[in-house]
C-alpha cells in the first residue's frame, strides 16, 4: 500500500488558544541575600507566548531544555498557574475558573502525557487502577462492568492485548514501552478533546519509539483530538506535527506549517537547531552551522533579541530592541529583524 501523508481537513474551529502567556518563577535566595538584595530575581520561563491550536491539529513546540516548552504545557492544564495571560479552551478562559469543581470538569476534556513513565505511574497501583482512576474521579462508568469494559478497551487501543493479561500487573512488571503505553491509555481513557504530550517517547528506544508514535497517531485520528506536542527533537516534530513553533528562552521565535519551517527555516535559531540534528544518512553532505555557546540564563535574559548573543547574523538593532513575532505570510510567523523588511 502506498503511503499517503495525512491530509487533514482541518476545520477553522479553534480548540485552544493562548494569548500572551507569561510565567515567571520567583528565584529563592538564601536568607542573607533576601535581606540585602533590592529586587527579587525571576526566572522568565515563559514570556509572552501566543498560539492557536485548531480542532484535530497536532501543534508542536520545539526547543532546547530550559526554553520553557514544558512550562507552557503545564500552564495549559493549570498544573502551574500563569503569571499573566489567557488560555482559551473552546472560547472559555480557563484561567478565570475559580472553583475546583469547574477545573475538574475541564480536566475531563484536557489531558497530559508525561515524559517519564517510570515516574508518572504510581508503582503501587495496578494497571487497572491506574487507568480506572480518571474514570472513577470523573464518575464516567455507572457500574463495575462498564468500568471494566472501558479499561479493557483503552488497553486494546494501545495494543496491550489481551487486556486481562496486563490489567493486574504492576508498573515494575512492564517494559519501558509498555509503561508509556499505559500512561497514554490513561490519558486517552476519558476521550479528551485536547492533549498535551510532553516528550512522550524521549525515554524509549528507537525501535519501540516508532510503534508508540504510530499508536498515538492512530488514537489521535480516531478521536480527532487536538494536540500540543512538546519535543526537543525537530526531526520527530516533523514526523508528528501539522504546525510547529520554535521556542528560545521563553519566547516563540518562529512558527508555521511544519514542512515550511523545516525545509525553509527563517530564524537563525531554527536553522541552527535543524543543522545540529544528526541524520541517519552518511552520504548527506550538509553545511553544519554549529552555533557557539550555551543558552543564556533565563534570570537575566539578554536585552533585545534573546538569541543575539549566539546569532551569527546579529546586528546593532538586535542588541537593543526585541523583534516582534510578525507574520511573513498567512501561516508563517517569525521574530527576526532579518525578515522584518
Amino acid at each position: 500500500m502506498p503511503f499517503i501523508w495525512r491530509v487533514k481537513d482541518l476545520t477553522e474551529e479553534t480548540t485552544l488558544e493562548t494569548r500572551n502567556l507569561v510565567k515567571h518563577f520567583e528565584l529563592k535566595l538564601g536568607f542573607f541575600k533576601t535581606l540585602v538584595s533590592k529586587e527579587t530575581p525571576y526566572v522568565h520561563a515563559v514570556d509572552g507566548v501566543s498560539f492557536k491550536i485548531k480542532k484535530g491539529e497536532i501543534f508542536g513546540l520545539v526547543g532546547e531544555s530550559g526554553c520553557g516548552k514544558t512550562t507552557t504545557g503545564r500552564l495549559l492544564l493549570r498544573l502551574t498557574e500563569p503569571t499573566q495571560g489567557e488560555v482559551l479552551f473552546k472560547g472559555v478562559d480557563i484561567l478565570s475558573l475559580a472553583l475546583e469543581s469547574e477545573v475538574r470538569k475541564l480536566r475531563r476534556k484536557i489531558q497530559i502525557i508525561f515524559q517519564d513513565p517510570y515516574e508518572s505511574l504510581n508503582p503501587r497501583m495496578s494497571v487497572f487502577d491506574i487507568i480506572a482512576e480518571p474514570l472513577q474521579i470523573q464518575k464516567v462508568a455507572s457500574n463495575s462492568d462498564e468500568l471494566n469494559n472501558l479499561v479493557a478497551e483503552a488497553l486494546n487501543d494501545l495494543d496491550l492485548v489481551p487486556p486481562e493479561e496486563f490489567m493486574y500487573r504492576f508498573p515494575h512488571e512492564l517494559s519501558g514501552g509498555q509503561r508509556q503505553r499505559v500512561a497514554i491509555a490513561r490519558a486517552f481513557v476519558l476521550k479528551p478533546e485536547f492533549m498535551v504530550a510532553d516528550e512522550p517517547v524521549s525515554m524509549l528506544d528507537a525501535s519501540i519509539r516508532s510503534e508508540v508514535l504510530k499508536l498515538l497517531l492512530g488514537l489521535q485520528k480516531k478521536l480527532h483530538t487536538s494536540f500540543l506536542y512538546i519535543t526537543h527533537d525537530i526531526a520527530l516534530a516533523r514526523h508528528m506535527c501539522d504546525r510547529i513553533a520554535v521556542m528560545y528562552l521563553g519566547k516563540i521565535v518562529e512558527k508555521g506549517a511544519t514542512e515550511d519551517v523545516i525545509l525553509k527555516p527563517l530564524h537563525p535559531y531554527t536553522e541552527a537547531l535543524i543543522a545540529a540534528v544528526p541524520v541517519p544518512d552518511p552520504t548527506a553532505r550538509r553545511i553544519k552551522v554549529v552555533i557557539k555557546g550555551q543558552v543564556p540564563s533565563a534570570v537575566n535574559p539578554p536585552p533585545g533579541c534573546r538569541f543575539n548573543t549566539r546569532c551569527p547574523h546579529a546586528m546593532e538593532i538586535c542588541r537593543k530592541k526585541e523583534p516582534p513575532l510578525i507574520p511573513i505570510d498567512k501561516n508563517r510567523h517569525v521574530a527576526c529583524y532579518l525578515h522584518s523588511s
Partner: protein
Amino acid sequence: MESLLTVENLKMYYDTLRGSVRAVDDVSFEVNKRQALGLAGESGCGKTSAALSVIKMLPSNGRIIDGKITLDGEDIVKMKEDEVRKRIRWKRISMIFQGAMNALHPTYTIGYQITEAIVKHEDVKKREAEERAGKLLELVGIEASKVDRYPHELSGGMKQRAVTAMALACDPDLIIADEPTTALDVIVQAQVLRVIKELKSRLDISMILISHDLSMIAETCDKSAIMYAGKIVEYGDVVPLFTEPLHPYTQKLINAFPSVLGPKKELTSIHGFPPDLLNPPSGCRFHPRCEHSMEICRLKEPALTETGKKKRQVACHLYGESKI
C-alpha cells in the same frame, strides 16, 4: 588499512541467580588505525558489555567466557588484571563514559581528576601533570583557567568535554565512547561531537562509538556493527550499510529514525520486544520479530558471512546459501 584491535568470537556472560545472561555471544569486529567503528543497537543488546570487555572493566558478575581481544598482537583476555591496568587501560585504550554528569567525582575539581589519571598511569611529577591537564582542557575547548572548577560549576556540555579530556590524558591509541552525548541537547550534542571528531583526526586516534542513535553513527563513523540480542547481525562500511542495509533488523532500525532532510517518510516500527538473553530464541534471534522469517530461521542460527558486496557481512538466511 592497518588493524589496531581485533576482537574474535568474544563471549561475555553475566552470572545471575536465574542463570547466565548471554550479553555478548560470539562477537567479532576489528578497529583499524585512525578509524571509527560504531556499535549500534537497542538498549540491552550487549554493545556496552562488548566495549567493557575490551578494557576488561567488567562488573563483578560478568565473565569473559571465550574469545580473543588482540591489541597490536597481544591478547588482552589472557593478560593479568595488574598488567591490563598498568599497560593497557588508559594508556592504550581509554573510555568516555555514558552520562558524564555522573562519571565525574562531585567533590574534586576537574583539574585534580585529570591530573590524578595522569599521575596514576605515568611516571611524571604532579606539577607537570597539572600543566598537561590545563592543555588537555584547552584541547577540548575549555579555558585552562577552569581547571579549578568543580563539576557542579560546569554545564552538561562542558562536563562531557572534561570527561573527553580525561580520556585523552595518557595519549591513548583507542578511545571507547559510550553514548557520549545522550543526555545533551541537540546543539550541545553537535558541539561535543565536533570536538570528538576533530580530536580523532588531529591526534590520530581510533575510536569505538557506542550509540543507540544510528544518525550519530552515520555522521561520525567509518564502519559500523549493528548488534541485536548479543550478536552482530550486520557489519561493514558505514556508507553502503546505511544506504543499502541488508539485514531486516538494520533496515527497520534505520527507517525508525525520522530525518530532517529529504522527503517525509513513514517510520517503520519493529513489532514486539527484544528477547530475554537468559533464554534467547532458537535459530536466528530476530526471527520472532522478523517479517521475512522462514522455517530455517527458527531452526538454524545464521552465521555472519561475507556477502557479494565488498567487505559486508550479514547474518541472515535471506542472503546465505545455507539450506537445512
